[in-house]
């Protein structure tokens, strides 16, 4: 476990300050691409301890809740007993923690979406009558991306396994971030034209300058249009402009020499398509391709923040072996719901695969998973009743020793679930005073899972 020093952000210094200290009088200027901060003048990596490595955040989301009687560990603290639904995590048990007994307090007017939006933003949904809604605030992944995203080529990446997903990652009201649900599309974005692997030569390309000129002109168009708009439309155009600036920055980096990251290699291209087999989506095959790509995306430091939407809230996906869609089963299956349980075991198996892929990447004195935290959660507690009590929350990775792993914390008092995002934002080096809004707002994290 890494002992926090005054060099960490929680000690009051930014990473930039820290590196300036580490590098002494070496020529580090503000204008340098952030990755170069992790390398000395000859381009070799510093001893990759947590002080010098970036921290990453991942959100794993699945639909239709859990079965608390099979999800919550029977005992608490370190060395807790893995409950039936977490048996797929056995190999990673020292790197995961379970938080149970907390409650999402932001209301439940739109089943499933209230849970997803309420927990990930800490704020009640904006509802517009009937079943119309939007998230009211940025989701945790975007809160973090706003702070750390400018250091990498992609400020965040959103992926999904099931096709046709409405977003669960929001930058603000009506500003959802759609998920990439094709491994081939993710590969093209990250490892296609714009990617340079360590050791590869960057060829001069005069078209890159022209592409930036195009984007400059587009930004000029937007600025002139913006002046004529009302406040709400200005906000929407600003969202568009943010994306254009991101893209321009990304193009500017294409001609920089790639950093020498030991674990970074260009992956094999995944299959172009994963057609349904016998009317059922190939969730396992897609998940494994996507997980492998995501691990290398982080290993190559292309982004530090991702959301990973296994399936959409209210998903009625037909899982292998299931007699009906997932959502329908959670409502219609009688008794202890063995089919729902079997589906949850499949999902946890796929989460375990993702975590294993992250843990297989060696970085310095640990693994990629050690240098990040993955929050795994769902859109409600029990699918049958859409309850928001005893919310399902699994954490993986210690985020460079900021978080306790291998423990089960059970809230004795139905604490506000927003305490978990608060703690994770802090573990990522943010210093938020509060997280959430209205009944969901907190100013405290969950000290039981914070490393002392």
């Amino acid at each position, binding site marked *: 476990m890494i002992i926090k020093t005054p060099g960490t952000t929680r000690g009051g210094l930014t990473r930039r300050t820290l590196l300036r200290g580490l590098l002494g009088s070496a020529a580090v200027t503000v204008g340098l691409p952030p990755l170069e901060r992790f390398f000395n003048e000859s381009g070799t990596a510093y001893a990759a301890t947590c002080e010098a490595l970036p921290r990453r955040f991942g959100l794993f989301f699945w639909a239709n809740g859990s079965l608390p009687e099979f999800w919550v560990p029977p005992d608490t603290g370190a060395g807790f007993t893995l409950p039936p639904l977490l048996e797929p995590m056995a190999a990673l048990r020292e790197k995961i923690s379970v938080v149970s007994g907390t409650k999402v307090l932001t209301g439940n007017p739109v089943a499933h979406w209230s849970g997803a939006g309420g927990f990930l933003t800490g704020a009640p949904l904006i509802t*517009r*009558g009937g079943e119309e809604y939007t998230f009211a605030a940025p989701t945790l992944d975007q809160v973090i991306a706003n702070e750390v995203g400018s250091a990498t080529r992609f400020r965040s990446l959103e992926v999904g396994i099931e096709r046709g997903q409405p977003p669960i990652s929001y930058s603000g009201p009506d500003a959802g971030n759609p998920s990439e649900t094709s491994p081939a599309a993710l590969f093209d974005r990250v490892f296609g034209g714009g990617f340079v692997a360590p050791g590869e030569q960057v060829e001069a390309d005069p078209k890159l300058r022209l592409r930036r000129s195009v984007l400059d002109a*587009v930004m000029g168009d937007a600025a002139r249009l913006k002046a004529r708009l009302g406040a709400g439309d200005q906000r929407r155009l600003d969202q568009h402009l943010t994306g254009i600036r991101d893209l321009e920055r990304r193009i500017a980096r294409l001609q920089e020499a790639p950093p020498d990251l030991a674990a970074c290699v260009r992956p094999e291209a995944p299959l172009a398509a994963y057609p349904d087999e016998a009317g059922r989506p190939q969730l396992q095959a897609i998940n494994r391709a996507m997980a492998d790509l995501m691990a290398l995306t982080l290993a190559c430091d292309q982004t530090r923040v991702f959301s990973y939407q296994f399936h959409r809230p209210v998903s009625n996906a037909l899982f292998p072996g299931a007699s009906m869609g997932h959502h329908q089963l959670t409502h219609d299956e009688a008794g202890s719901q063995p089919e729902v349980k079997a589906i949850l075991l499949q999902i946890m198996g796929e989460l375990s695969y993702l975590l294993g892929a992250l843990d297989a990447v060696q970085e310095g004195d640990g693994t990629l998973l050690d240098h990040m935290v993955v929050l795994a959660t769902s859109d409600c507690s029990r699918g049958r009743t859409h309850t928001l009590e005893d919310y399902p929350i699994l954490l993986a990775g210690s985020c460079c020793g900021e978080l306790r792993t291998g423990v089960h914390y059970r809230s004795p008092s139905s604490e506000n679930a927003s305490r978990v995002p608060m703690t994770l934002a802090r573990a990522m080096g943010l210093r938020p005073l509060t997280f959430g809004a209205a009944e969901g707002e907190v100013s405290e994290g969950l000290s039981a899972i914070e490393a002392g």
Partner: protein
Amino acid sequence: MKRPSLAIARISARGRVLAVAALSLGALALPACEEGPPPDLGAAAPAPTVQPLPPFEAVPASLTRLTRSQYGNLVRDLFGAGVVVPARLEPDVAQAGFFSVGAGRTSISPRGVEQYEAAAFDIAAQVLRPEGRGWLACTPSGPEDAACYREILAPLTRRAWRRTPTADELDGLVALALDAGRTLGDPFEALAFPVAQLLQSPHFLFRAELGEPDADGTGRRYSSVEMASRLAFFLWNTGPDAALLDAGEAGELVTEAGLRAAAERLLADPRAEAAVRNFFVEHLGLMALDDLTKDPTVFVHASPDLALSAREETLRTLAHVIFDLDTDVRTLFTTRTTFVDRRLAALYGVPAGAQEGFAQVELPADGPRAGLLGHASVLMVNAHAVSSSATRRGAFIRKALLCDVIPPPPADVDTSLPEPSGERPTMRDRLSSHAANPTCAGCHAIMDPIGLGLEQFDGIGRFRTTEAGATIDPTGDVDGVFFEDARALGEALAASDKVGPCLVKRVYRYATGHEETLGEIAEIDRLAQRFASQGHRLQALLLDVVLSPGFRTVAAAADTDETPSGEGAL
């Protein structure tokens, strides 16, 4: 609350009716799903507080993103039908049932920006290849032929941005072409850059129709040039052609006569049929057919191709009623005329009529199937992956076709149905548990009895008479009108006084891109009366909507950001 999304009936979480207006529109105010006897939905709706309708009040403009279909249509208008429009584009977002409403609320995500950039260069490469250059106004003599660049870019920008570009804007595009020409040495490679700018500009990707002071200075109207766009996107689902832009720039589209003439021309063009199809795809939720999950072990006829055929049947039938016959659209619920290919013919058990593609057929006079509610499209969308769903079908008819408001199911309620069993073989038997549970009964009493009328059609729309060995009872009632079976349900809907006004409301919502506000109810009411008096012909309605102040006038944009309002939550 400057822009209330008043759904006519506004219902509090406690089930108290706050305000109910315009009952002539057929709005149905339902108490929330609370304990108590099912609401009586016959002649006696819940006693509402009837308020006089306020006078018409225009709604502020909002920036509207092109939908995916509009982007594709406009690109093909600019460069020719042969352009392959890239599929990876920002997805549409349905709000209030329509992409056209979502387009006025959402923006473009960072991923969307990337996708639009890639698409712009992809399109530019296609249309600047030797075989793609038919749209060019001239052939550049070299990489620095500024005059020819200008000749190409001026009309292209005008069509793409739906207005004549300013001198500065055009100079900027030409300068970009010259810069690229000097750098790359090839005029066609160079043109890719201004073309890519055109296609990524907010002037292309967004519709900014902001209005101007009207003629007598008392309010605001859309400018004549903006009206060209509004007309084209509503009636053609694409941007205006050169003639419409000419009319717009000549100031003709702020006069009733000019607007009528332009709208009549657009309605007579084949693109109007494409736009009406697009409306019904959104209105009836037929986009779901792109990616519908059906268990092939349960439904052996199910396939992605069958779903697409089913959508085509519905759209062809609509086009037939609306354009070929220009008749009462309510005949859609009863007509035995339909369009099938071999796949659908096999599903329906009727002769195919054609070896290839679709053919018009008459369904048997004594058969179980007629009208929209017998179409596989709506039957398979409103069903589960492994079964039918009387509740979903009932909710579809209530919400989409009758414009009733159904509160969402309450959270924290055990929604499980009893397992199929010897005692409860049919869906009707299983759904009876809803009626027995007072928490569920209130809402399900208005959905299930309608949907049960379609139970003789399985989860993909195949006719059956039994379920689990028991005979299916297809009787039910809709708003107090008893019906024998699906065909009788169709006849009941065709005769319902709610169907016409509901369609008017939905067309108005689609055309204006926002949920109706209180200040628009009286105008929608008037349009509904006109619709009825003109024989429920959709083309006449489209023309009336174009001429309505709701389509032609606009309020000034608000100074404050009102989007995240939470009205309706109460």
